[in-house]
């Protein structure tokens, strides 16, 4: 329990702040519903015309895009929340107050993103509930245990990118190049709205260098087709590899960034 005291304090803090803006809190869920509705109508344009590219995900575009939209939220959180927590702490002056306590900056960084991940997971559940209850998405075959493992690995490998993003903010304060990367490259190549198979052949190898691509493919297979562990193993191994390489590397980069900021006296400047 003692080890969780600090992370839980961050979750409680962020939850309290969120609840203090009740309108924004409820509008988020309305936004999810509106997004789902929009893609439901888009999917009706295609009607029953099944695309061969969607066959491995069950053939239904609406179900395909529902998973993509739900899980791309993790990417957004990873790319934004780590850097945002550092920047917000610098601007509000709370980072200095936190750093004077015997709490490591890495603990502050990771704990600051916990609520965002928790909330994103709630959003994912909401996406699936709305999809299943209101729009008839069939999740009856879902391999939930495999989906949870994929979700965990997704969070770990995406977090690595978020930590690198926070390192940029730590040193350069603004102009984070990973922001643009997440907004354009990941959305374009990660397979959120369409399968990677529709990309030009020369672009597809780039897409398979992104953890998002493996994460979405595994999640769609697990949730929509109830794919077995064996079928999901290649994607799971890829995500394990991403996490195993990127996480230590990102923590190393972050440590270097913190050291540089402390050396330059800019740790709490913005």
């Amino acid at each position, binding site marked *: 329990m003692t080890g969780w005291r600090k992370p839980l304090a961050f979750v409680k*803090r962020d939850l309290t702040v969120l609840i203090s803006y009740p309108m924004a809190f409820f509008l988020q869920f309305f936004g999810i519903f509106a997004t789902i509705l929009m893609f439901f109508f888009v999917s009706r344009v295609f009607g029953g015309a099944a695309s061969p590219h969607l066959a491995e995900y069950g053939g239904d575009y609406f179900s395909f895009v529902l998973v993509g939209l739900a899980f791309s939220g993790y990417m957004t959180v990873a790319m934004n929340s780590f850097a945002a927590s550092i920047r917000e702490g610098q601007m*509000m002056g709370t980072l*200095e*107050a936190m750093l004077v306590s015997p709490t490591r900056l890495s603990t502050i960084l990771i704990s600051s993103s916990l609520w965002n991940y928790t909330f994103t997971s709630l959003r994912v559940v909401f996406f699936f509930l709305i999809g299943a209850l209101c729009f008839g998405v069939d999740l009856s075959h879902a391999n939930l245990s495999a989906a949870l493992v994929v979700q965990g690995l997704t969070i770990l490998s995406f977090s690595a990118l978020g930590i690198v993003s926070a390192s940029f903010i730590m040193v350069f304060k603004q102009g984070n190049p990973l922001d643009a990367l997440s907004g354009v490259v990941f959305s374009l190549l990660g397979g959120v709205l369409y399968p990677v198979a529709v990309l030009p052949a020369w672009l597809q190898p780039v897409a398979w260098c992104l953890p998002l691509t493996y994460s979405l493919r595994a999640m769609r297979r697990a949730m929509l087709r109830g794919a077995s562990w064996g079928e999901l193993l290649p994607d799971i191994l890829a995500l394990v590899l991403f996490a195993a390489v990127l996480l230590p590397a990102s923590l190393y980069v972050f440590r270097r960034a913190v050291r540089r900021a402390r050396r330059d006296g800019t740790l709490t400047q913005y």
Partner: protein
Amino acid sequence: MLQTAAPGKARAKKGGAVPVAIVTEGLTKRFPQKVSLRQAALHPFRRLSGAPLTAVDRVSLEIRQGELFGLLGPNGAGKTTLVKMLCTLVLPDSGRAEVNGFDLSDEARVRASIGLVSGEDRSFYWRLTGRQNLEFFAALHGLSARAAAGRIARAAEWLELGEFLDRRFDRYSSGMKQRLGIARGLLNDPSILFLDEPTRSLDPVSAAHLRDVVKQLVRERGHTVVLVTHQLHEAEDLCDRIAIMHKGRLRVVADPLTLRRQAGVRHYRLRVRGLNAEGAALVKGWPGLAIREPAGDPGLLVLEFQPAEGEAGEALANLLDRVVGAGGRIEDVETPEAALETAFRKFTRDAAPAAEAGS
């Protein structure tokens, strides 16, 4: 070479029983200077850097346990950088320091034994109440919910925060924010508290209340306080010893009285009545003397007297004799606050000597 101390215990000063809370030796910090955009554009592939700016220059000092230590200096003197190094927020380039017997590299232990209260009154979560803010920071110090509740209750009672504690922070006045800042600084019951311009944004009444709190922290609760301030009267009123920094160097460390003396300039203000025109003419032209006649109080003369260095006692006695001899009645003799300002000006001149190590 710093003597090794038992971790967590302040070191006893050599030859005496006064334990040392903070000791620094040759502590230095240089910040890299940014190069201009033009330079960077003209030499894109050359590693450029301007001459580093020395923010803190070989500072050696000892702060005793239970002392209220003032850090004065003009803007950019290096005070905040020094405090941030002692709080482990900025890495020194050279030299070393011990805080509560812990080397600065032992960051977790240093941080566990200190508190920092900055003049920045925004450094809380505005959508949380004072209590929720304190509970959050208490958790960062590893306090259990029960221990935190106890500490918060005690701090709230002492700082008269009680009725405001469950009010959201964005509804606090500046004075309340500063008191909450002190409550936060005390959550881990630190033996050393750094206060960085705590009265900067406060009205006179709130500032006076905060100064009382600071006095109690040291005199009644036994904390060591390092007070960074621009308010000379505040430093003089509160501090046992004052250090004046200028351009990164420690110029002098002394108690306020000694500081005035070391300034080498004495200044007396005499309030005199009954001095007739003949008497006034007699003292007029006295070396170092200026005479004022305050409006609205006829018959009162204020004599501002600054004797030459080294002859203050004799010169003052001579002047008093002359005034009394001329029929004057001396109502009051004071050494006004300007004296510390004089010391401040003297020690922040560029040619001022640097303080001896460990002054």
